[in-house]
């Protein structure tokens, strides 16, 4: 079975904190993605990576950064958390031109 694992299901952080969300996949996929999902807005792409140490901005990268030092791991960093970053964060991975597989999601609340 394919597996994408996100480090936390639920997180509560304070405004201004630096937040790390970790994602690991065991399928040797070259592509990895970070989305956020909000009611009525659907899934919006934050960043993606198509190779180790490569990263590309998605549609809403402001306030976020990413790191991909190893093929299986893709980290999302909130440099200084704000309340408008309260959301469900979803990590996914894929091979080129095939379906993406998602992790279980991290519900982040910034207070």
């Amino acid at each position, binding site marked *: 079975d394919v597996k994408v694992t996100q480090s936390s299901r639920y997180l509560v952080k304070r405004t201004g904190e630096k937040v790390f969300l970790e994602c690991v996949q065991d399928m040797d996929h070259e592509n990895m*993605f970070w989305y956020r999902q909000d009611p009525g807005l659907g899934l919006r792409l934050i960043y993606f990576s198509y190779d180790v140490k490569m990263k590309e901005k998605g549609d809403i990268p402001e306030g976020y950064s990413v790191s991909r030092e190893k093929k299986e791991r893709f980290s999302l960093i909130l440099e200084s958390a704000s309340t408008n970053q309260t959301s469900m964060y979803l990590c996914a991975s894929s091979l080129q031109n*095939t379906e993406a597989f*998602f992790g279980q*999601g991290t519900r982040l609340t910034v207070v």
Partner: protein
Amino acid sequence: EDQVTQSPEALRLQEGESSSLNCSYTVSGLRGLFWYRQDPGKGPEFLFTLYSAGEEKEKERLKATLTKKESFLHITAPKPEDSATYLCAVQAPYKYIFGTGTRLKVLA
């Protein structure tokens, strides 16, 4: 601009009442159309991939079809456990573009 539109936003069915969900898309050079199921508080679960017009895929009570402009997810004789949000996505170069989903509720 690449875009995916799903309809209806929400659908309530009686158990056994068949129906279809729609996914309309515009994308320059379709590389794949994907259907997912998402339960509340969880990540999307992959259902089907369709690559070319005329292609069909089936799994239990679900059947996905594809034309040049849209895809349908047909649900035959649904059960309450089919209640979920169904998401459609297309692949643009290096990324996936999602619709906002159809929330399906099947009543016993």
